[in-house]
């Protein structure tokens, strides 16, 4: 097994108590962070010379079957030039507010990743410019499907699900933001 990533020591030096435990899982370094400092840590890892984690691979979340364990939001980073990976986690109390800061200002690609986490887990990303559902349609009313308290077949009866799927207009499922500027996205 490979050793802990050298970035962990740098993180501890720069952020002190905001960096929790760090461990190696299957050769990858996992660092648990304080929720309040997530954005600072991500910016530091991206911009600090010698770190250079310039590629956001994925944002996802985990809920464990054990109800005692907290929800985790996971960021997978990669430094393309150094060929190094780092995985960051923030633990959230399921009873508390499920909210972490957005990193869409650091990586534009975080937009849809964060929308997917919101859609599937109901974790909000504070400061996200357009936090709508992305996999389920926007008027979906049954909740967040990947949460453990979500029944496999959904909350509603099949007839109600078909009714809701057929009853609403397709155009209503996918509202575009009214200020969508094609030039800006081009």
């Amino acid at each position, binding site marked *: 097994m490979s050793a802990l990533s050298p970035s962990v020591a740098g993180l501890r030096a720069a952020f002190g108590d905001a960096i929790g435990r760090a461990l190696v899982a299957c050769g990858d370094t996992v660092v648990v962070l304080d929720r309040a400092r997530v954005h600072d840590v991500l910016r530091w890892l991206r911009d600090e010379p010698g770190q250079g984690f310039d590629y956001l691979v994925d944002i996802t979340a985990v809920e464990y079957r054990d109800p005692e364990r907290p929800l985790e939001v996971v960021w997978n980073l990669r430094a393309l030039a150094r060929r190094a990976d780092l995985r960051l986690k923030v633990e959230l109390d399921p009873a508390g507010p499920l909210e972490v800061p957005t990193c869409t200002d650091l990586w534009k690609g975080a937009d849809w990743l964060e929308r997917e986490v919101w859609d599937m887990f109901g974790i909000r990303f504070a400061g996200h410019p357009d936090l709508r559902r992305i996999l389920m349609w926007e008027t979906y009313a049954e909740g967040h499907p990947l949460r453990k308290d979500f029944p496999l077949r*959904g909350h509603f009866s099949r007839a109600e699900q078909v009714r809701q799927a057929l009853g609403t207009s397709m155009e209503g499922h996918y509202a575009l933001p009214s200020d969508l500027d094609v030039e800006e996205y081009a």
Partner: protein
Amino acid sequence: MELNDAPGGAEVAAVSPSFVTTRLDFLANWARANSLWPMPFGTACCAIEFMATAASRFDLARFGMERMSFSPRQADVLICAGRLPFKLAPVIRRIYDQMPQPKWVISMGACASSGGIFDNYAMVQGIDTVVPVDVYVPGCPPRPEGLMYGIMLLQKKIRGESLADAALRTERGVGPDGLYLPPPVIDELSEPFGNSVHQTRSA
């Protein structure tokens, strides 16, 4: 007449009428059954088998179906090849509504017919809860031979239709409640069966 010039042609011409009599039903059904234009609605691996069916080895053109109609307005038979999520339910319903009569629907594969292994929150449990279905083709996915057998069953069904029977062409649109079937029927059609009754451990 050139028939008379052939050897024995005069005898043949003497006994052959220059017209045929048939029933209008037979003629219309013959024409319809042998020129079905499919509207492919492929969402999953069944669509791969459907493509194989249309390609040269199995050659769907033998049944008058070589002309895929990617516009529903020129299509006769909607072939739903693959699983249908609830997100696509209004899409297939609109495609079906846009198809002109006469029209038929083939539900290809386990997922389209019953939801298959996907007995979960996202999947329609059989497209017959969304549009009326004429032929169900089992399989996961069905082999091209299976799909062709289903198509031939549909042709057989078409040959048995009657132009006088208006009920065949009666549209059952989506009602004001957003459904075309009563809710208890949809619930019954969607009930878990087979292996999917054991899938609720995490529920």
